[in-house]
């Protein structure tokens, strides 16, 4: 088992002929992901790499392939529209990789996706991977290995760092999910924790948060009240100056809400393990399993 994706997940790539889209589609196919179609308006009827059928619209792609998942690599100004198109076409799980989507666009997208009953991951996220089965997004496959640690993170490369350290220590992963660094995003920590708690393969969870907002505090409360599996947390940005945007639009400390200290305190209160450095995930998880 795993969460959100497995070897049966069928994926359509929105923006398949673009620079990032084509590069990562090849990587996903190589990893074993079932890419059943792609969408680029005006290129319907073509074949990507001679094998993957390209459609003009997501509706066409879903009708022809029955895809249940989509991954989005379109430019930021078109990303909101692409997400809504996927939800409207009946896609159940939408993974938006695109970075730099205007935040106001996302305020329209959210209620729409919710009404359609779809799940959104991202935007501005690396996607997710169920090692040995399927990857949707851009997480490098070779740093992962199948196992029983669930990984959830707001960052991209920091996730790779932790996964790499876990794999080196022989601790495989059930699913690794990057929820993205934007202030307004889809799937959040709690959604992932809830799924990991239910997943029989997952035995423990590594969670990487960062400064800004209160998502980590709410996640800690969820761990305290609703989870039996051990969770180890990390917060990036302990040395960040207040009020500045640290790359991720969501990482702004406003007033007292969102500091690393507050978040770590919430983790402690929830009885979670705390990794002060990425490498400490290994010992902290080991001690709790």
């Amino acid at each position, binding site marked *: 088992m795993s969460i959100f994706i497995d070897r049966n997940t069928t994926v359509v790539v929105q923006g398949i002929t673009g620079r*990032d889209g084509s590069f990562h589609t090849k990587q996903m196919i190589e990893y074993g992901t079932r890419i059943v179609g792609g969408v680029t308006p005006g290129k319907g009827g073509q074949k990507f790499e001679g094998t993957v059928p390209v459609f003009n619209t997501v509706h066409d792609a879903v009708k022809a392939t029955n895809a249940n998942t989509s991954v989005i690599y379109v430019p*930021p*100004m078109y990303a909101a529209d692409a997400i809504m198109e996927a939800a409207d076409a009946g896609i159940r799980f939408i993974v938006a990789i695109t*970075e*730099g989507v*205007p*935040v*106001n666009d*996302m*305020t*329209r997208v*959210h*209620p*729409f996706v919710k009404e359609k009953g779809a799940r959104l991951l991202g935007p501005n996220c*690396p996607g997710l991977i169920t090692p040995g089965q399927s990857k949707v997004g*851009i*997480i*490098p496959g070779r*740093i992962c290995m199948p196992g029983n640690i669930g990984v959830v*993170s*707001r*960052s*991209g*490369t*920091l*996730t*790779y*760092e932790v996964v*790499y350290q876990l794999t080196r220590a022989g601790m495989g992963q059930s699913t690794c999910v990057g929820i993205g*660094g934007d*202030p*307004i995003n889809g799937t959040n920590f709690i959604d992932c924790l809830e799924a990991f708690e239910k997943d029989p393969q997952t035995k423990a969870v590594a969670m*990487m948060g*960062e*400064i800004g*907002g*209160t*998502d980590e505090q709410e996640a800690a409360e969820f761990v305290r009240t609703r989870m039996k599996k051990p969770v180890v947390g*990390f917060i*990036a*940005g*302990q*040395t*960040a*100056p207040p009020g*500045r*945007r*640290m*790359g*991720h*639009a*969501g*990482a702004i400390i*406003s*007033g*007292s809400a969102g500091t690393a200290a507050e978040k770590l305190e919430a983790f402690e209160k929830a009885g979670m393990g705390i990794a*002060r*450095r*990425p*490498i400490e995930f290994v010992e902290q998880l080991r001690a709790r399993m």
Partner: protein
Amino acid sequence: MNIHEYQAKELLRAEGVPIPPGEVATSAEQAEAIAKKIGGMVVVKAQVHTGGRGKAGGVKLAKTPAEAKEVAKKILGMQINGLTVHQVLVTSAADIASEAYVGIILDRASKKPVFMVSPAGGIDIEEVAAKTPEKILKLPIDTRYGLQPYQASELGFFLFPDDVKKVRAASKIMTQLYSAFMKHDASLAEINPLVVTPAGEVLALDAKFSVDDNALDRHPDLVKLRDETAEEPSEVDARNSNLTFIKLDGNVGCVVNGAGLAMATMDLVKYYGGEPANFLDIGGSSNPEKVVNALRIITGDPSVKVILFNIFGGITRTDDVANGIVTATKANPLEIPIVIRLTGTNEEIAMKILQENGFSASSDMDEAVKKAVDLATKGGKAA
């Protein structure tokens, strides 16, 4: 992106928000001329991207144009929270009977823009929120439908419970503020204070406006409002090179790919007893040019004693980064030590490139950070 008060007021004026007349001046003489044109008592206000202007002496009343000139002379060139004042807004002074707060912010929790209004205006809204939360009304807006008239009126009644005339005036301003917020892709729009004059007029006396950086591509008109003199020069240089850079006070210069890993690297520098000199994210796509620019910006800071690269290659190809390091240091030889950690995509090729050019590199993050901190604290010279 933050814009100045006078620019924010222009955006709001264009929507019809009533604002006392005013113009911006860059010299004391100009300030005098504007004061003369406006007539009567004026306020001279420093235009800088920081709060606490009043407390710092950057906001002063002037009864006559001559006094406006004198006051402007004092304010222009003044330092407020480390920022130099290059412009002042000269605006008509209004008589104030009461002050309120009106703002719209993007709220992560509700995933919507949220109106925040309070009859306790003129002061720090975060203080009001902490001490007297009952004096604040928060109202999330569904952007698919926009601000509805009944909502605007609800906000107005919260400010002026027993004066329908003022409620109507305030509601109209709410609608205009919301319109400016959406039209310009704001992440924050604030009128503080919204005042009532003794004659019962409702006016916006101060305005604050931040534009969502992600939306700037579709607002070339707003990009022109950016005041680069109000920012740290190295940060302007970084932005023009497509790098995300924030200057800090330490001496370990950090070059990292990815915001989360960049923050984690800074934290690890601190963990091992050092102080990061900056936050720098070279981003996902690795063109060697970015590395060259990153090195130029970091070595431009004289307090930097050591350079630390921490690259985890996913989309970023580590051989591109290695090539960037070689190119940059050939053109401008480094005078301070460099510590390189890279792992991931094309790691073997990258290591070979570095070795052939006399650099050593590690694949372990903790090891590299520790080494960089040691070099910085010893003030080491050679690489």
